[in-house]
């Protein structure tokens, strides 16, 4: 028996950072908003408090904050010729669940993309010619420019209180910042975090080689800060339990610390937790959404009618929501037709590990999730790719986030995996090693995509999302090249041994890389190659908006969260000032 509820103005699916931002703005504008969150409510007090929160086994290894994969996993294969199998344990990426979403367990690494990234297809063609790209790449422009997003980037950074040093303010290069960044309208809200030893060693070596090191922009704050919503954040104390954990100190910018209290105080908003949305409902024309159907925590089924539906779930779940709802044509890699699930991309992560003598004491456990120093000299299109045979790049950084020993115990190549030699190597190197992260771009290809699995189902009986993904040759060549540059920096630091670990194929679901899944509901200029228009409105069902990193046509060289925050404010602006004043298509197809 489905219970039909009273119609509301807006249903928001997923109350993470995006859902909180959208709900807060639309409720403040006078609309009745219902937020449906599949997980439970959780707060800094009592859920995130020490010492219980500093439990590596529970949060890192057992992944306590993550989407319940016993009920709702994905299936995976490298190629369409294989049979996809369920991801029975999360490893490669870690979607969160619960109030505040995945951002509760993020690291706070808060980068903007560069102007070039938003017009990647056009700029690549202009600079390198139309035959430069591998034929399997399906990169495209975003349909929105950096200049259009800049005010929204700025607003998001000031919401979070991000700690950093500007490198380019309105075209003026700033000493100490990243000279490669696209112009920003003003300085970061708070000064950079203190630099850890790894960062200082990296800075000295990279400077000496003529590169341009700068402090990582961090939303673990360097100093007390009051954001424009009136909420106050504390100074981060570098506890070393950041990613995969929630912050006990009110020092990490997450929905609970920067916005949720404001949203929950607004009577126009109603939060319902434990609600698993099954689908967005369409009328008989399939061109108009009537609301959503969800099942609550005790198994009751409800229909929630709404004039506007906004899906704000984690990237891969946004794709699945559209596929389960029959919104947009599913992508078919054989024909290249269809759009939902197309251009699924990821991140191409490599590492370089530098082993020092025992008189160099690193203290890796002193870190925030975004402390560190890096260079953008080999990121994006900041270097000439002529003759290199690839596009894209990676930032190179000593951006160590922790020394938690179950997962962090580096040993030099050739060390046995167990026994006395392993143990002695762990003891010898634990406190004397510097690891670089090489955070590489991920280009979309014809063969990488997501669709519904024909066999495996979730706990509610619905098909799982099936991900078909392997690293493009373009990205593997990029990883080789950038790793060779990073190894040189490791040697310049004076390490006695430097081990390069360029990302190799095939992509494996068994090893953590990043939770930066992108694409599948990409934004763009044409309904033939995108799911949503430049305002993140469905081309097919105009009263459905889709907001997530699933909107990225391909992924750039940096962590995706800040760009998602900017896109969200961009879409909110269009919703408030265009769509809700006159509901209908914001862009004609």
């Amino acid at each position, binding site marked *: 028996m489905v219970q039909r509820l009273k119609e509301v103005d807006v249903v928001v699916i997923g109350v993470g950072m995006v859902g909180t931002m959208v709900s807060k703005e639309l409720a403040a504008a006078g609309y009745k908003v219902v937020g449906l969150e599949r997980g439970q409510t959780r*707060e*800094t*007090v*009592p859920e995130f*408090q*020490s*010492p219980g929160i*500093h*439990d*590596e*086994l529970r949060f890192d*290894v*057992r*992944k306590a904050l993550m989407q319940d*994969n*016993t009920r709702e*996993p994905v299936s995976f*294969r490298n190629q369409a010729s*294989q*049979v996809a*199998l*369920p*991801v*029975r*344990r999360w490893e490669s990426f870690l979607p969160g669940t619960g109030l505040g979403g995945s951002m509760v367990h993020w690291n706070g690494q808060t980068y903007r993309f560069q102007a070039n990234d938003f017009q990647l297809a056009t700029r690549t063609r202009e600079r390198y010619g139309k035959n430069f790209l591998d034929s399997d790449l399906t990169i495209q422009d975003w349909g929105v420019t950096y200049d259009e997003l800049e005010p929204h980037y700025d607003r998001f950074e000031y919401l979070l209180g991000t700690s950093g040093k500007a490198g380019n303010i309105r075209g003026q290069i700033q000493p100490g910042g990243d000279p490669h960044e696209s112009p920003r309208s003003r300085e970061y809200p708070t000064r950079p975090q203190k630099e850890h*030893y790894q960062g*200082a060693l990296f800075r000295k070596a990279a400077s000496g080689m003529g590169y341009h090191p700068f402090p990582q922009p961090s939303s673990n704050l360097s100093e007390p800060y009051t954001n424009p919503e*009136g909420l*106050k954040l*504390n100074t981060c104390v*570098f*506890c070393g339990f950041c990613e995969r954990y929630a912050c*006990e100190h*009110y020092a990490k910018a997450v929905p609970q610390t920067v916005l949720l*209290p404001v949203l*929950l105080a607004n009577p126009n908003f109603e939060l319902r937790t434990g609600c698993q949305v099954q689908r967005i409902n369409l009328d008989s024309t399939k061109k108009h959404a009537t609301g959503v159907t969800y099942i609550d925590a005790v198994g009751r089924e409800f229909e929630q009618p709404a004039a506007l539906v906004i899906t704000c779930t984690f990237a891969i779940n946004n794709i699945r929501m559209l596929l389960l709802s029959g919104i947009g044509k599913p992508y078919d890699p054989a024909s290249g037709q269809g759009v939902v699930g197309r251009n699924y991309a990821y991140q191409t992560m490599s590492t370089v590990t530098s082993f020092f003598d025992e008189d*160099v*004491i690193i*203290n890796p*456990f*002193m*870190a925030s999730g975004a*402390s560190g120093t890096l260079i953008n000299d080999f990121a994006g299109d900041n270097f000439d790719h002529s003759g290199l045979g690839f596009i894209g790049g990676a930032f190179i950084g000593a951006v160590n986030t922790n020394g938690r*020993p*179950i997962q962090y*115990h580096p040993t030099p190549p050739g060390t046995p*995996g*167990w*026994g006395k030699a392993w*143990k*002695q190597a762990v*003891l010898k190197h*634990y406190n004397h090693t510097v690891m670089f992260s090489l955070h590489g771009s991920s280009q979309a290809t014809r063969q990488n995509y997501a669709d519904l699995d024909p*066999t*495996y189902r979730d706990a509610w009986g619905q098909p799982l999302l099936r991900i078909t993904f392997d690293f493009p040759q373009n990205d593997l060549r990029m990883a080789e090249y950038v790793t060779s540059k990073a190894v040189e920096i490791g040697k310049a630091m004076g390490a006695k041994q430097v081990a390069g670990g360029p990302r190799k194929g*095939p*992509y*494996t*679901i*068994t090893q953590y890389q990043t939770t930066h899944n992108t694409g599948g509901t990409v934004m763009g200029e044409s309904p033939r190659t995108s799911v949503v228009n430049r305002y993140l409105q469905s081309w097919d069902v105009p009263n459905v908006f889709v907001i997530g990193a699933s909107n990225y046509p391909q992924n750039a060289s940096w962590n995706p969260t800040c760009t998602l925050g900017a896109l969200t404010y961009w879409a909110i602006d269009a919703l408030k000032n265009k769509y809700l004043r006159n509901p209908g298509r914001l862009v004609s197809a």
Partner: protein
Amino acid sequence: MVMQRVTRRSFVTSVGAASMLPTSAVLGAAQGAEPAKENAANAAGTTTPDISVADRPTYLFFNEAEVLFIEAACERLIPADESGTGALGAGVPNYLDKQLGGAWGAGERLYRSGPWAPGTPQQGYQLPFTPAELFRNCLRAIDRQLGAANTPFHEMSPAQQDAYLKSLESGGHDLDGVPSTIFFDMLLAMSIEGFFADPAYGGNKDMVAWRMIGFPGAYADYYEAIDKHGVKFVRDPISLAEDGRGHVHMHPDIPASL
């Protein structure tokens, strides 16, 4: 008093493990000495696995034959040596026992719907077994295979034990349908967990592994230390179990109950 806590099971298993202990440790145990505490205070100073009869875990999951294998195998994976305690002294077998006997062993956070297929290495674990079922299945197969050859694992020399573990690691055995590399990988991963996880989980006894590498544990504040580059951070580690310093970060502007 000490002897009253020695159950039949733990007595049998301690005799089994004693075959690998130096005589002095066994004598110490029999006399009720407490080498564990001494060793914890000086993690780098001894090669003696610090386990006494009184300190033996009460095994709830493993049976007696399984304990013989697990204790001996864990100690080869992470052996006691001149750098300090190994898996046995740190209580790693106890950690495995409690994990396998609890929610993790029963398939916590494991998607368990079929159909089943071996898949590719890139697709990860694809067996119907829970961890508890996997261990039981594989330990039974190992016991039978080695028993048939009259070479029980715990009676082998350390070199023989290492060779056998390597053969498991390389996938050289079919353990009643399970490729031995899958079992070995899980045994090794859980042994490392037990060595380095908070002592609240039953391994890393007295934070001995943390002391060896210099990890301060659940300690939470390095604001003043982080930019003192290259200075060794010297203080006793903190376990989750030490709640004396517990405090709650109440925020003046964000209500605890949103």
